Protein backbone atom coordinates (compact mmCIF):
# COMPACT_ATOMS: atom_id res chain seq x y z
CA UNK A 1 0.00 0.00 0.00
CA UNK A 2 2.70 2.38 1.03
CA UNK A 3 4.55 1.66 -2.17
CA UNK A 4 2.15 3.28 -4.56
CA UNK A 5 0.54 5.77 -2.22
CA UNK A 6 3.19 8.31 -3.24
CA UNK A 7 2.22 8.19 -6.88
CA UNK A 8 -1.42 8.68 -6.04
CA UNK A 9 -0.77 11.63 -3.76
CA UNK A 10 -2.12 14.86 -5.19
CA UNK A 11 0.78 17.21 -5.83
CA UNK A 12 0.71 20.92 -5.39
CA UNK A 13 1.40 22.52 -8.75
CA UNK A 14 3.83 25.15 -7.46
CA UNK A 15 6.25 22.46 -6.23
CA UNK A 16 6.82 21.02 -9.71
CA UNK A 17 9.65 23.31 -10.96
CA UNK A 18 11.58 22.86 -7.71
CA UNK A 19 11.25 19.12 -7.91
CA UNK A 20 12.53 19.14 -11.48
CA UNK A 21 15.45 21.36 -10.58
CA UNK A 22 16.31 19.08 -7.68
CA UNK A 23 16.21 15.94 -9.83
CA UNK A 24 18.44 17.52 -12.46
CA UNK A 25 21.07 18.92 -10.10
CA UNK A 26 20.84 16.91 -6.92
CA UNK A 27 24.49 15.83 -6.87
CA UNK A 28 25.77 19.36 -7.44
CA UNK A 29 23.42 20.79 -4.82
CA UNK A 30 24.33 18.19 -2.21
CA UNK A 31 28.04 18.71 -2.81
CA UNK A 32 27.82 22.48 -2.61
CA UNK A 33 25.83 22.35 0.60
CA UNK A 34 28.25 19.85 2.16
CA UNK A 35 31.33 21.92 1.33
CA UNK A 36 29.60 25.13 2.40
CA UNK A 37 28.60 23.63 5.73
CA UNK A 38 32.11 22.32 6.26
CA UNK A 39 33.65 25.75 5.61
CA UNK A 40 31.10 27.47 7.82
CA UNK A 41 31.76 25.03 10.64
CA UNK A 42 35.48 25.54 10.22
CA UNK A 43 35.19 29.32 10.32
CA UNK A 44 32.87 29.15 13.31
CA UNK A 45 35.22 26.83 15.19
CA UNK A 46 38.10 29.26 14.72
CA UNK A 47 36.11 32.40 15.56
CA UNK A 48 33.81 31.39 18.33
CA UNK A 49 34.50 27.77 19.05
CA UNK A 50 37.21 26.26 21.12
CA UNK A 51 39.94 26.09 18.44
CA UNK A 52 42.99 28.27 19.00
CA UNK A 53 43.53 30.44 15.85
CA UNK A 54 47.26 30.03 16.38
CA UNK A 55 46.98 26.38 15.36
CA UNK A 56 44.30 26.68 12.71
CA UNK A 57 43.50 29.60 10.44
CA UNK A 58 39.89 29.97 9.34
CA UNK A 59 38.91 29.56 5.68
CA UNK A 60 38.34 33.27 5.18
CA UNK A 61 41.91 34.03 6.20
CA UNK A 62 43.15 31.20 3.96
CA UNK A 63 41.35 32.62 0.93
CA UNK A 64 42.53 36.15 1.76
CA UNK A 65 46.08 34.85 1.83
CA UNK A 66 45.55 32.91 -1.39
CA UNK A 67 44.40 36.09 -3.09
CA UNK A 68 47.29 38.03 -1.60
CA UNK A 69 50.08 35.71 -2.83
CA UNK A 70 48.77 36.04 -6.37
CA UNK A 71 48.10 39.77 -6.05
CA UNK A 72 51.66 40.57 -4.96
CA UNK A 73 53.12 37.83 -7.17
CA UNK A 74 55.11 36.33 -4.31
CA UNK A 75 53.87 32.84 -5.21
CA UNK A 76 55.51 32.63 -8.64
CA UNK A 77 59.09 31.90 -7.55
CA UNK A 78 57.72 28.99 -5.52
CA UNK A 79 55.71 27.72 -8.46
CA UNK A 80 58.77 27.96 -10.64
CA UNK A 81 61.05 26.16 -8.18
CA UNK A 82 58.64 23.25 -7.64
CA UNK A 83 57.53 23.16 -11.25
CA UNK A 84 61.10 22.88 -12.49
CA UNK A 85 61.86 19.93 -10.22
CA UNK A 86 58.55 18.23 -10.91
CA UNK A 87 58.63 18.80 -14.66
CA UNK A 88 62.22 17.72 -15.11
CA UNK A 89 61.82 14.64 -12.93
CA UNK A 90 58.53 13.66 -14.53
CA UNK A 91 59.80 14.00 -18.09
CA UNK A 92 62.87 11.92 -17.31
CA UNK A 93 60.72 9.31 -15.54
CA UNK A 94 58.47 9.05 -18.60
CA UNK A 95 61.43 8.89 -20.95
CA UNK A 96 62.88 5.99 -18.95
CA UNK A 97 59.68 4.28 -17.86
CA UNK A 98 57.81 4.01 -21.14
CA UNK A 99 60.59 2.36 -23.21
CA UNK A 100 61.51 0.03 -20.34
CA UNK A 101 57.88 -0.93 -19.88
CA UNK A 102 57.51 -1.62 -23.59
CA UNK A 103 60.62 -3.80 -23.65
CA UNK A 104 59.48 -5.67 -20.55
CA UNK A 105 56.06 -6.26 -22.00
CA UNK A 106 57.38 -7.46 -25.32
CA UNK A 107 60.51 -9.46 -24.47
CA UNK A 108 60.41 -12.14 -21.89
CA UNK A 109 64.12 -11.99 -21.07
CA UNK A 110 63.97 -8.27 -20.35
CA UNK A 111 60.98 -8.85 -18.11
CA UNK A 112 62.64 -11.69 -16.24
CA UNK A 113 65.76 -9.60 -15.68
CA UNK A 114 64.05 -6.40 -14.54
CA UNK A 115 60.99 -7.69 -12.73
CA UNK A 116 62.69 -8.44 -9.38
CA UNK A 117 64.03 -4.90 -9.22
CA UNK A 118 60.72 -3.38 -10.19
CA UNK A 119 58.82 -5.40 -7.60
CA UNK A 120 61.42 -4.69 -4.93
CA UNK A 121 61.36 -0.98 -5.56
CA UNK A 122 57.60 -0.91 -5.89
CA UNK A 123 57.33 -2.18 -2.33
CA UNK A 124 59.87 0.23 -0.82
CA UNK A 125 58.79 3.80 -0.01
CA UNK A 126 60.85 6.16 -2.14
CA UNK A 127 61.58 8.56 0.70
CA UNK A 128 63.92 6.08 2.30
CA UNK A 129 66.41 6.75 -0.50
CA UNK A 130 66.43 10.46 0.16
CA UNK A 131 69.59 10.44 2.33
CA UNK A 132 71.43 8.62 -0.45
CA UNK A 133 70.40 11.13 -3.09
CA UNK A 134 71.48 14.00 -0.86
CA UNK A 135 74.86 12.32 -0.42
CA UNK A 136 75.25 11.81 -4.14
CA UNK A 137 73.81 15.02 -5.53
CA UNK A 138 74.10 17.52 -2.67
CA UNK A 139 71.21 19.66 -1.49
CA UNK A 140 70.62 21.49 -4.77
CA UNK A 141 67.96 20.76 -7.33
CA UNK A 142 69.15 17.37 -8.50
CA UNK A 143 68.51 15.30 -5.39
CA UNK A 144 64.91 16.48 -5.64
CA UNK A 145 64.70 15.60 -9.31
CA UNK A 146 66.14 12.19 -8.49
CA UNK A 147 63.51 11.61 -5.82
CA UNK A 148 60.79 12.51 -8.31
CA UNK A 149 62.21 10.13 -10.90
CA UNK A 150 62.51 7.20 -8.52
CA UNK A 151 59.11 7.93 -7.02
CA UNK A 152 57.36 7.98 -10.38
CA UNK A 153 59.17 5.77 -12.83
CA UNK A 154 57.99 2.44 -11.47
CA UNK A 155 54.29 3.09 -11.70
CA UNK A 156 54.87 4.16 -15.30
CA UNK A 157 56.90 1.02 -16.03
CA UNK A 158 54.27 -1.25 -14.50
CA UNK A 159 51.36 0.33 -16.36
CA UNK A 160 53.20 0.38 -19.66
CA UNK A 161 54.16 -3.25 -19.27
CA UNK A 162 50.58 -4.19 -18.43
CA UNK A 163 49.39 -2.34 -21.52
CA UNK A 164 51.96 -3.92 -23.79
CA UNK A 165 51.41 -7.46 -22.59
CA UNK A 166 47.66 -6.99 -22.97
CA UNK A 167 47.86 -6.08 -26.64
CA UNK A 168 45.49 -8.28 -28.64
CA UNK A 169 47.59 -11.15 -30.03
CA UNK A 170 45.37 -11.26 -33.10
CA UNK A 171 46.32 -7.74 -34.10
CA UNK A 172 50.00 -8.62 -33.87
CA UNK A 173 49.38 -11.69 -35.98
CA UNK A 174 47.51 -9.60 -38.54
CA UNK A 175 50.50 -7.30 -38.89
CA UNK A 176 52.79 -10.32 -39.19
CA UNK A 177 50.59 -11.72 -41.92
CA UNK A 178 51.20 -8.49 -43.83
CA UNK A 179 54.94 -9.05 -43.39
CA UNK A 180 55.57 -6.66 -40.48
CA UNK A 181 58.94 -6.92 -38.75
CA UNK A 182 59.38 -6.61 -34.98
CA UNK A 183 60.03 -2.87 -35.17
CA UNK A 184 56.91 -2.25 -37.25
CA UNK A 185 54.87 -4.33 -34.82
CA UNK A 186 56.10 -2.18 -31.95
CA UNK A 187 55.46 1.05 -33.81
CA UNK A 188 52.16 0.34 -35.52
CA UNK A 189 50.45 -2.13 -33.19
CA UNK A 190 51.97 -2.30 -29.71
CA UNK A 191 52.56 1.41 -29.11
CA UNK A 192 49.11 2.68 -30.13
CA UNK A 193 47.34 -0.26 -28.49
CA UNK A 194 49.02 0.34 -25.14
CA UNK A 195 48.82 4.13 -25.26
CA UNK A 196 45.77 4.32 -22.95
CA UNK A 197 47.64 2.26 -20.35
CA UNK A 198 50.71 4.44 -20.68
CA UNK A 199 48.68 7.59 -20.15
CA UNK A 200 46.97 5.99 -17.15
CA UNK A 201 50.40 5.24 -15.69
CA UNK A 202 51.46 8.81 -16.24
CA UNK A 203 48.29 10.01 -14.56
CA UNK A 204 48.96 7.83 -11.54
CA UNK A 205 52.47 9.29 -11.54
CA UNK A 206 51.20 12.84 -10.99
CA UNK A 207 50.29 12.26 -7.36
CA UNK A 208 53.64 10.64 -6.71
CA UNK A 209 55.52 13.49 -8.33
CA UNK A 210 53.88 15.99 -6.00
CA UNK A 211 54.59 13.88 -2.91
CA UNK A 212 58.24 13.57 -3.90
CA UNK A 213 58.56 17.29 -4.52
CA UNK A 214 57.02 18.24 -1.17
CA UNK A 215 59.09 15.73 0.78
CA UNK A 216 62.30 16.82 -0.93
CA UNK A 217 61.56 20.48 -0.34
CA UNK A 218 60.79 19.75 3.28
CA UNK A 219 64.25 18.27 3.56
CA UNK A 220 66.24 21.07 1.94
CA UNK A 221 65.07 23.95 -0.21
CA UNK A 222 64.98 27.72 -0.50
CA UNK A 223 61.78 27.97 -2.54
CA UNK A 224 58.86 25.84 -3.68
CA UNK A 225 55.31 25.00 -2.69
CA UNK A 226 56.47 22.31 -0.29
CA UNK A 227 59.07 24.64 1.16
CA UNK A 228 56.31 27.23 1.60
CA UNK A 229 54.25 24.80 3.65
CA UNK A 230 57.08 23.65 5.90
CA UNK A 231 58.35 27.19 6.42
CA UNK A 232 54.85 28.34 7.28
CA UNK A 233 54.47 25.51 9.76
CA UNK A 234 57.65 26.53 11.52
CA UNK A 235 56.32 30.12 11.77
CA UNK A 236 52.84 29.06 12.96
CA UNK A 237 51.44 30.57 9.76
CA UNK A 238 48.72 27.99 9.22
CA UNK A 239 46.95 29.99 6.50
CA UNK A 240 50.05 29.64 4.32
CA UNK A 241 50.11 25.86 4.83
CA UNK A 242 46.61 25.71 3.40
CA UNK A 243 47.58 28.01 0.53
CA UNK A 244 50.34 25.55 -0.43
CA UNK A 245 47.97 22.60 -0.06
CA UNK A 246 45.29 24.20 -2.22
CA UNK A 247 47.79 25.08 -4.94
CA UNK A 248 49.26 21.57 -4.99
CA UNK A 249 45.77 20.11 -5.24
CA UNK A 250 44.89 22.49 -8.05
CA UNK A 251 48.01 21.53 -9.99
CA UNK A 252 47.19 17.82 -9.61
CA UNK A 253 43.60 18.27 -10.72
CA UNK A 254 44.59 20.38 -13.72
CA UNK A 255 47.21 17.90 -14.92
CA UNK A 256 44.92 14.97 -14.33
CA UNK A 257 42.01 16.36 -16.27
CA UNK A 258 44.36 17.46 -19.04
CA UNK A 259 45.63 13.90 -19.38
CA UNK A 260 42.12 12.52 -19.21
CA UNK A 261 41.15 14.72 -22.12
CA UNK A 262 44.22 13.59 -24.00
CA UNK A 263 43.35 9.97 -23.25
CA UNK A 264 39.83 10.37 -24.55
CA UNK A 265 41.06 12.05 -27.68
CA UNK A 266 43.77 9.49 -28.39
CA UNK A 267 41.73 6.44 -27.47
CA UNK A 268 38.07 7.23 -27.93
CA UNK A 269 37.27 3.54 -28.33
CA UNK A 270 38.49 2.65 -24.87
CA UNK A 271 36.82 3.06 -21.53
CA UNK A 272 39.00 4.45 -18.79
CA UNK A 273 39.59 1.10 -17.14
CA UNK A 274 43.31 1.01 -17.63
CA UNK A 275 44.81 1.93 -14.28
CA UNK A 276 47.12 -0.41 -12.49
CA UNK A 277 49.31 -0.14 -9.46
Amino acid at each position, binding site marked *: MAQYSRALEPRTEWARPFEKFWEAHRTAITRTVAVGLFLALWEWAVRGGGVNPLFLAGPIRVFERLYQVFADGSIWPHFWASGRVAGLGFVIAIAIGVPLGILMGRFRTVRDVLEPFVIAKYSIPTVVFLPLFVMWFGIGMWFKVMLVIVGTVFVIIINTEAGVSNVDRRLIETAKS*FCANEFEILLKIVAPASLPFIIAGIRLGIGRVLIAVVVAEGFAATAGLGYLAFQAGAAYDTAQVFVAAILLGAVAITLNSGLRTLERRLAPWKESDTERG
Partner: protein
Amino acid sequence: MIEISNVAHSFVNKGAVIGGLPVLDGVSLTIHDREFVSFLGPSGCGKTTLLRILDGLVRQTSGQVTIDGHVIRKPARERAMVFQEFNLLPWRTTLRNVELGLELHGRSRAERTRLARENLRKVGLGGFEGYFPHQLSGGMKQRVGIARALSTSPNLLLMDEPFGALDPQIRELMQIEMLKLLETEARTVVFVTHSVEEAIFLSDRIVIFSARPGRILAIVEVDLPKPRWADDERIKASPEFVKYRSQIWHMLKGELQRAQA
Protein backbone atom coordinates in the same frame (compact mmCIF):
# COMPACT_ATOMS: atom_id res chain seq x y z
CA MET B 1 50.11 -23.81 -57.91
CA ILE B 2 50.22 -24.76 -54.25
CA GLU B 3 51.58 -28.14 -53.33
CA ILE B 4 51.04 -29.46 -49.86
CA SER B 5 52.89 -32.70 -49.34
CA ASN B 6 52.56 -34.87 -46.32
CA VAL B 7 52.12 -32.04 -43.85
CA ALA B 8 51.74 -32.82 -40.16
CA HIS B 9 51.54 -30.44 -37.28
CA SER B 10 51.49 -30.71 -33.51
CA PHE B 11 50.96 -27.91 -31.06
CA VAL B 12 53.77 -27.84 -28.58
CA ASN B 13 52.27 -28.03 -25.15
CA LYS B 14 54.27 -25.71 -22.92
CA GLY B 15 55.68 -27.69 -20.03
CA ALA B 16 54.90 -31.07 -21.50
CA VAL B 17 57.96 -33.23 -21.90
CA ILE B 18 56.90 -35.54 -24.68
CA GLY B 19 55.18 -34.71 -27.93
CA GLY B 20 52.31 -32.27 -28.21
CA LEU B 21 48.78 -32.16 -29.49
CA PRO B 22 48.69 -33.46 -33.07
CA VAL B 23 46.29 -31.38 -35.18
CA LEU B 24 47.23 -32.31 -38.73
CA ASP B 25 48.47 -35.59 -40.05
CA GLY B 26 49.70 -36.60 -43.48
CA VAL B 27 47.91 -33.92 -45.47
CA SER B 28 48.73 -33.82 -49.18
CA LEU B 29 46.88 -31.59 -51.59
CA THR B 30 47.40 -29.62 -54.77
CA ILE B 31 45.60 -26.33 -55.28
CA HIS B 32 45.56 -24.91 -58.79
CA ASP B 33 45.83 -21.29 -59.77
CA ARG B 34 42.56 -19.37 -59.68
CA GLU B 35 40.82 -22.16 -57.92
CA PHE B 36 38.42 -21.57 -55.06
CA VAL B 37 39.05 -24.28 -52.46
CA SER B 38 37.22 -24.65 -49.17
CA PHE B 39 38.44 -26.50 -46.10
CA LEU B 40 35.54 -28.05 -44.27
CA GLY B 41 35.67 -30.14 -41.12
CA PRO B 42 34.82 -30.44 -37.43
CA SER B 43 36.16 -27.91 -34.95
CA GLY B 44 39.75 -28.50 -34.01
CA CYS B 45 40.53 -30.54 -37.13
CA GLY B 46 43.44 -28.29 -38.04
CA LYS B 47 41.92 -26.57 -41.06
CA THR B 48 42.70 -23.13 -39.69
CA THR B 49 46.19 -24.29 -38.80
CA LEU B 50 46.72 -25.46 -42.36
CA LEU B 51 45.58 -22.05 -43.58
CA ARG B 52 48.08 -20.37 -41.29
CA ILE B 53 50.79 -22.67 -42.53
CA LEU B 54 49.91 -21.58 -46.08
CA ASP B 55 50.27 -17.96 -45.02
CA GLY B 56 53.57 -18.64 -43.28
CA LEU B 57 52.35 -17.63 -39.83
CA VAL B 58 52.85 -21.16 -38.54
CA ARG B 59 55.67 -23.51 -39.43
CA GLN B 60 54.48 -27.08 -39.85
CA THR B 61 56.10 -29.77 -37.73
CA SER B 62 56.85 -31.90 -40.77
CA GLY B 63 56.14 -32.10 -44.48
CA GLN B 64 56.48 -29.40 -47.08
CA VAL B 65 54.41 -26.66 -48.65
CA THR B 66 55.47 -24.95 -51.86
CA ILE B 67 53.89 -22.24 -53.94
CA ASP B 68 55.08 -22.23 -57.55
CA GLY B 69 58.04 -24.28 -56.38
CA HIS B 70 59.05 -21.96 -53.53
CA VAL B 71 58.99 -23.28 -50.00
CA ILE B 72 56.88 -21.18 -47.61
CA ARG B 73 58.89 -19.97 -44.65
CA LYS B 74 57.18 -16.76 -43.59
CA PRO B 75 54.37 -14.43 -44.68
CA ALA B 76 54.86 -12.92 -48.13
CA ARG B 77 53.40 -10.03 -50.05
CA GLU B 78 51.75 -12.34 -52.57
CA ARG B 79 49.46 -13.69 -49.89
CA ALA B 80 46.83 -11.97 -47.78
CA MET B 81 44.59 -13.17 -45.05
CA VAL B 82 41.03 -12.33 -43.97
CA PHE B 83 40.34 -13.16 -40.34
CA GLN B 84 37.24 -14.45 -38.61
CA GLU B 85 37.34 -11.73 -35.94
CA PHE B 86 38.12 -9.05 -38.55
CA ASN B 87 41.21 -7.93 -36.59
CA LEU B 88 40.83 -4.26 -37.35
CA LEU B 89 42.92 -1.76 -35.43
CA PRO B 90 40.43 0.10 -33.19
CA TRP B 91 42.48 3.33 -33.26
CA ARG B 92 42.49 3.56 -37.04
CA THR B 93 39.74 4.77 -39.32
CA THR B 94 38.37 2.51 -42.01
CA LEU B 95 40.66 4.07 -44.59
CA ARG B 96 43.75 3.77 -42.38
CA ASN B 97 42.85 0.18 -41.56
CA VAL B 98 42.77 -0.73 -45.22
CA GLU B 99 46.08 1.06 -45.64
CA LEU B 100 47.80 -1.12 -43.03
CA GLY B 101 48.83 -3.89 -45.41
CA LEU B 102 50.03 -1.44 -48.06
CA GLU B 103 51.93 0.48 -45.42
CA LEU B 104 53.71 -2.66 -44.23
CA HIS B 105 54.51 -3.47 -47.84
CA GLY B 106 56.24 -0.12 -48.12
CA ARG B 107 53.93 1.54 -50.64
CA SER B 108 53.98 5.31 -50.98
CA ARG B 109 51.42 7.39 -49.14
CA ALA B 110 49.65 8.52 -52.28
CA GLU B 111 49.41 5.00 -53.65
CA ARG B 112 48.17 3.71 -50.31
CA THR B 113 45.35 6.19 -50.11
CA ARG B 114 44.36 5.64 -53.72
CA LEU B 115 44.28 1.84 -53.43
CA ALA B 116 42.54 1.92 -50.06
CA ARG B 117 39.79 4.22 -51.34
CA GLU B 118 39.39 2.16 -54.47
CA ASN B 119 39.03 -1.09 -52.56
CA LEU B 120 36.67 0.39 -50.00
CA ARG B 121 34.45 1.45 -52.88
CA LYS B 122 34.65 -2.06 -54.30
CA VAL B 123 33.38 -3.63 -51.10
CA GLY B 124 30.58 -1.07 -50.90
CA LEU B 125 32.05 1.14 -48.19
CA GLY B 126 32.66 4.28 -50.21
CA GLY B 127 31.84 7.18 -47.90
CA PHE B 128 32.83 5.30 -44.74
CA GLU B 129 36.53 6.18 -44.93
CA GLY B 130 36.48 8.26 -41.74
CA TYR B 131 34.56 5.79 -39.55
CA PHE B 132 36.20 3.89 -36.73
CA PRO B 133 35.62 0.12 -36.38
CA HIS B 134 33.43 0.52 -33.28
CA GLN B 135 31.05 2.58 -35.39
CA LEU B 136 30.59 -0.20 -37.97
CA SER B 137 28.40 -3.31 -38.00
CA GLY B 138 29.93 -6.79 -38.14
CA GLY B 139 29.30 -7.11 -41.87
CA MET B 140 30.89 -3.72 -42.52
CA LYS B 141 33.91 -4.61 -40.43
CA GLN B 142 34.51 -7.71 -42.47
CA ARG B 143 34.18 -5.71 -45.68
CA VAL B 144 37.01 -3.58 -44.34
CA GLY B 145 38.96 -6.76 -43.65
CA ILE B 146 38.35 -7.95 -47.19
CA ALA B 147 39.30 -4.56 -48.65
CA ARG B 148 42.49 -4.60 -46.59
CA ALA B 149 43.44 -7.99 -48.03
CA LEU B 150 42.44 -7.20 -51.61
CA SER B 151 44.20 -3.83 -51.67
CA THR B 152 47.59 -5.58 -51.62
CA SER B 153 46.60 -7.50 -54.80
CA PRO B 154 47.50 -10.94 -53.47
CA ASN B 155 47.75 -13.95 -55.77
CA LEU B 156 46.49 -16.09 -52.95
CA LEU B 157 43.65 -15.00 -50.71
CA LEU B 158 43.39 -16.91 -47.45
CA MET B 159 40.09 -16.63 -45.63
CA ASP B 160 39.69 -17.99 -42.12
CA GLU B 161 35.95 -18.40 -41.53
CA PRO B 162 35.49 -14.82 -42.64
CA PHE B 163 31.71 -14.85 -42.25
CA GLY B 164 31.60 -17.03 -39.15
CA ALA B 165 30.98 -14.10 -36.81
CA LEU B 166 28.15 -12.62 -38.90
CA ASP B 167 24.45 -13.29 -38.61
CA PRO B 168 23.06 -15.81 -41.15
CA GLN B 169 21.34 -13.32 -43.44
CA ILE B 170 24.27 -10.96 -43.69
CA ARG B 171 26.41 -14.01 -44.22
CA GLU B 172 24.52 -15.06 -47.36
CA LEU B 173 24.66 -11.54 -48.73
CA MET B 174 28.39 -11.38 -48.12
CA GLN B 175 28.89 -14.66 -49.97
CA ILE B 176 27.10 -13.29 -53.01
CA GLU B 177 29.05 -10.05 -52.91
CA MET B 178 32.33 -11.85 -52.54
CA LEU B 179 31.74 -14.06 -55.57
CA LYS B 180 30.83 -10.97 -57.55
CA LEU B 181 33.96 -9.23 -56.36
CA LEU B 182 36.28 -12.14 -57.07
CA GLU B 183 34.88 -12.61 -60.56
CA THR B 184 36.55 -9.45 -61.78
CA GLU B 185 39.91 -10.25 -60.21
CA ALA B 186 40.78 -13.87 -60.73
CA ARG B 187 42.88 -15.21 -57.90
CA THR B 188 43.35 -18.35 -55.88
CA VAL B 189 41.22 -18.52 -52.75
CA VAL B 190 41.50 -20.90 -49.82
CA PHE B 191 38.48 -20.59 -47.60
CA VAL B 192 38.00 -22.19 -44.20
CA THR B 193 34.41 -22.72 -43.11
CA HIS B 194 32.11 -24.67 -40.86
CA SER B 195 29.14 -24.24 -43.14
CA VAL B 196 28.42 -26.96 -45.70
CA GLU B 197 26.18 -24.70 -47.78
CA GLU B 198 28.69 -21.89 -47.78
CA ALA B 199 31.37 -24.28 -49.01
CA ILE B 200 29.17 -25.65 -51.81
CA PHE B 201 27.96 -22.24 -52.92
CA LEU B 202 31.43 -20.70 -53.11
CA SER B 203 33.86 -23.44 -54.02
CA ASP B 204 35.29 -25.22 -57.02
CA ARG B 205 36.51 -27.93 -54.70
CA ILE B 206 35.78 -28.80 -51.10
CA VAL B 207 38.37 -30.52 -48.98
CA ILE B 208 36.73 -32.38 -46.12
CA PHE B 209 38.85 -33.01 -43.05
CA SER B 210 38.51 -35.72 -40.44
CA ALA B 211 38.31 -35.02 -36.72
CA ARG B 212 41.60 -34.29 -34.97
CA PRO B 213 44.27 -34.99 -36.01
CA GLY B 214 43.01 -33.69 -39.32
CA ARG B 215 43.45 -35.88 -42.36
CA ILE B 216 41.84 -35.37 -45.72
CA LEU B 217 38.69 -37.44 -45.71
CA ALA B 218 37.45 -36.60 -49.18
CA ILE B 219 37.69 -33.98 -51.88
CA VAL B 220 34.45 -32.97 -53.57
CA GLU B 221 34.43 -31.20 -56.93
CA VAL B 222 31.50 -28.82 -57.06
CA ASP B 223 30.09 -28.77 -60.55
CA LEU B 224 27.47 -26.06 -60.37
CA PRO B 225 26.90 -23.43 -63.06
CA LYS B 226 28.65 -20.06 -62.79
CA PRO B 227 28.28 -17.24 -62.06
CA ARG B 228 26.53 -18.53 -59.01
CA TRP B 229 25.89 -15.14 -57.41
CA ALA B 230 23.57 -14.09 -60.24
CA ASP B 231 21.22 -16.94 -59.53
CA ASP B 232 21.85 -17.79 -55.92
CA GLU B 233 18.30 -18.70 -54.91
CA ARG B 234 17.77 -21.10 -57.80
CA ILE B 235 21.17 -22.71 -57.34
CA LYS B 236 20.64 -23.27 -53.63
CA ALA B 237 17.28 -24.89 -54.35
CA SER B 238 18.54 -27.02 -57.25
CA PRO B 239 18.60 -30.83 -56.93
CA GLU B 240 22.38 -30.83 -57.54
CA PHE B 241 22.99 -28.45 -54.64
CA VAL B 242 20.78 -30.52 -52.37
CA LYS B 243 22.58 -33.66 -53.42
CA TYR B 244 25.99 -32.16 -52.63
CA ARG B 245 24.71 -31.01 -49.30
CA SER B 246 23.43 -34.41 -48.20
CA GLN B 247 26.51 -36.18 -49.56
CA ILE B 248 28.89 -33.88 -47.65
CA TRP B 249 26.75 -33.72 -44.54
CA HIS B 250 26.67 -37.50 -44.42
CA MET B 251 30.47 -37.62 -44.37
CA LEU B 252 30.77 -34.81 -41.85
CA LYS B 253 28.17 -36.18 -39.51
CA GLY B 254 30.20 -39.32 -38.87
CA GLU B 255 33.27 -37.21 -38.13
CA LEU B 256 31.39 -34.84 -35.86
CA GLN B 257 30.02 -37.74 -33.88
CA ARG B 258 33.50 -39.15 -33.61
CA ALA B 259 34.85 -35.80 -32.46
CA GLN B 260 32.14 -35.54 -29.83
CA ALA B 261 32.78 -39.01 -28.49
